[in-house]
């Protein structure tokens, strides 16, 4: 699946490698530091012990002379784990102590031996020669009678310690290598696999499988969040795409039907023998029809532009109450003519940032609809408008006494071109509510349909707060 170079290209593998190198370097430095420090401390302790020993022997020499010294050396040399003791005559012949042989030349200069030297104790097996004994450090003192006293200590302990440290270093390096591999294996490869699956899924989506979504493991980690966001984006795109398809189909239908009618009428007028009056009438109908087409077309364009995001500079501070009374005033005679009672109730003055034209048009669409469909059951049809500032919203509601829109159709009612009346007999492009909805979306608000037959309400909900 993954070749080494591919593995090294993954972030996780790179991180594992980097951490491995870093920790290894740290471990090596730490071990070097600890071992050199502890070696120094051990050597220091050794020298201190030797110095004390020498001081003790010196006191014995003062008290009991050479005999006392030798006796003490004999006693101490026999103790288990004893230090090295050696007394020689000026010529280097061994008189007393527990050393059988010693590296030549060690005894020549008094004071601390500069380097570790080799020696062999009595009773120890081994071939002749100084090189194969134990290493040791010692202090060499010339006694007043030119005899030589050596007190030393074996170095095997610090050596052993150093070996332990080196072994520990090697072991920890090995552990780290193993750890890095495991981290890569469990984290890196897992990440790699998930990214592979995302890549694969997106490739399929690009390949045309638009319904496919990126895998979400359910772990809730950053991969899931990324996938979820990308999926939400894909859903949005799919929604827009679906809307576009729907709209093109609807445009095709809603523009083609009147265009066909138009063409048929022109053709009929051309072929008819009705004379100039009939021709004139046909032409007038043609113009009326094309005006309706233009109206529909303008509404489609406007909705598209609103949905695409209108420029923000087109908004100003305005009073919704003023627009409300404008629209009521504009529609009042027309409503009266149709026997509909149009009135404004509970109107508060509310300032918002908005586009007067758009809000005016949206509201007049809603009022137009309400008047058109307010004919109710027995009671006198009426349409009433109200404007109220609520806690989190501004609510401009248009209430009518008509049958309203059934609950199941409300979602659909604000879609483009949907006219719920199957017959399509009444005038209108079917875009009134869609346009109102687009205007509300543009203003950061929404359109709310509520109520029941005889008390149906379409409300324009504007966000409150930011404009006071």
């Amino acid at each position, binding site marked *: 699946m993954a070749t080494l170079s591919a593995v090294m290209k993954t972030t996780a593998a790179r991180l594992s490698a980097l951490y491995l190198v870093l920790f290894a370097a740290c471990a090596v430095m730490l071990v070097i530091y600890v071992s050199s420090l502890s070696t120094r401390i051990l050597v220091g302790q050794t020298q201190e012990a030797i110095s004390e020993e020498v001081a003790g022997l010196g006191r014995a020499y003062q008290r009991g002379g050479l005999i006392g010294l030798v006796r003490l050396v004999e006693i101490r040399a026999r103790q288990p784990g004893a230090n090295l003791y050696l007394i020689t005559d000026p010529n280097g012949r061994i008189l007393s102590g527990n050393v059988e042989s010693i590296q030549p030349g060690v005894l020549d200069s008094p004071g601390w031996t500069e380097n570790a030297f080799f020696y062999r104790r009595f009773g120890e097996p081994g071939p002749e020669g100084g090189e194969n004994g134990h290493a040791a450090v010692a202090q060499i003192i010339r006694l007043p009678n030119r005899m030589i006293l050596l007190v030393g200590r074996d170095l095997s302990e610090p050596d052993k310690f150093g070996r332990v440290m080196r072994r520990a270093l090697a072991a920890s390096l090995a552990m780290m290598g193993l750890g890095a591999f495991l981290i890569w294996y469990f984290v890196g490869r897992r990440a790699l696999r998930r990214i592979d699956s995302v890549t694969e899924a997106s490739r399929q989506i690009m390949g045309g499988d638009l319904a496919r979504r990126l895998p979400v493991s359910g772990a809730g980690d950053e991969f899931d969040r990324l996938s979820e966001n990308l999926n939400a984006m894909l859903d949005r795109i799919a929604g827009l795409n679906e809307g576009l398809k729907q709209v093109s189909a609807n445009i095709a239908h809603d523009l083609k039907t009147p265009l066909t009618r138009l063409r048929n009428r022109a053709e009929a007028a051309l072929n008819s023998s009705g004379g100039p009056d009939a021709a004139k009438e046909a032409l*007038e109908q043609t113009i009326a029809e094309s005006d309706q087409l233009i109206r529909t077309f303008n509404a489609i364009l406007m909705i598209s*532009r609103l949905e695409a995001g*209108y420029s923000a500079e087109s908004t100003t501070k305005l009073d919704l109450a003023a627009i409300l009374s404008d629209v009521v005033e504009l529609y009042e005679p027309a409503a009266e003519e149709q026997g509909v009672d149009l009135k404004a109730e509970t109107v508060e003055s509310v300032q918002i940032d908005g586009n007067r034209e758009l809000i005016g048009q949206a509201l007049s669409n809603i009022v137009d609809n309400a008047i058109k469909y307010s004919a109710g059951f027995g009671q006198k049809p009426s349409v009433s408008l109200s404007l109220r500032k609520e806690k989190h919203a501004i609510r401009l509601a248009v209430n009518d006494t008509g049958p309203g829109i059934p609950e199941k159709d409300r979602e659909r009612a604000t879609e483009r071109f949907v006219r719920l009346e199957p017959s399509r007999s009444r005038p209108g492009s079917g875009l009134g509510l869609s346009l109102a909805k687009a205007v509300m979306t543009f203003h950061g608000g929404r359109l709310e349909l509520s109520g029941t037959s005889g008390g149906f309400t379409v409300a324009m909900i504007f966000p409150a707060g930011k404009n006071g």
Partner: protein
Amino acid sequence: MKILIIEDDREAASFLKKAFSEAGHIADVASDGEAGFALADGGNYDVFVIDRMLPRRDGLSVIAGLRANGNTTPALILSALGEVDDRVTGLRAGGDDYLTKPYAFSELLARVEVLKRRAGTRDVETLYRAGDLELDRLSHTVRRGGQEITLQPREFRLLEYLMRHAGQVVTRTMLLENVWDYHFDPQTNVIDVHVSRLRGKIERGFDKPILHTVRGAGYMIRAD
């Protein structure tokens, strides 16, 4: 009236030229921005009708250039762009009116004639008179044959606009724009109902009609 049409679509331009001359006006045509600017700057026109998108020089730039040269001849912008913003930019560039394509010629004609009149009478009169109908802008009164007629404020403004353009056709959209200050297209005949109400008030009890409906175009105040 002498009109300059700057429009790059030949068919549309020749249709306009013909339609204007049928309405009793003289129209010249320029088919790009530069030529149009040269003609407009040199000639003596009453109204310019300028397409917004023109080859060689943009319509708005033509108007801005004319205004910079001190030419105040009213200009009407024709445009396929009809959103609120587009209208505002058009008028800001020095245009006097804005009409979105596709338009009815009757609408264009009515607007051009009103523009010409507006340019002619810069000072706004305080008393409008048409036949036996009088509108006094200062005292806010309307009389017909010496008899006072009570109007609602909006009806007064409607009549005021109609009377300022007495003898000229005023379209429904012109009324909505100038009396209500909205530019959208009301779906139903709301303006017609307003006008017929007003008509009821100023014609009831009088023999002669004075507020006429011009078929396919709009309305006109005219004392025969």
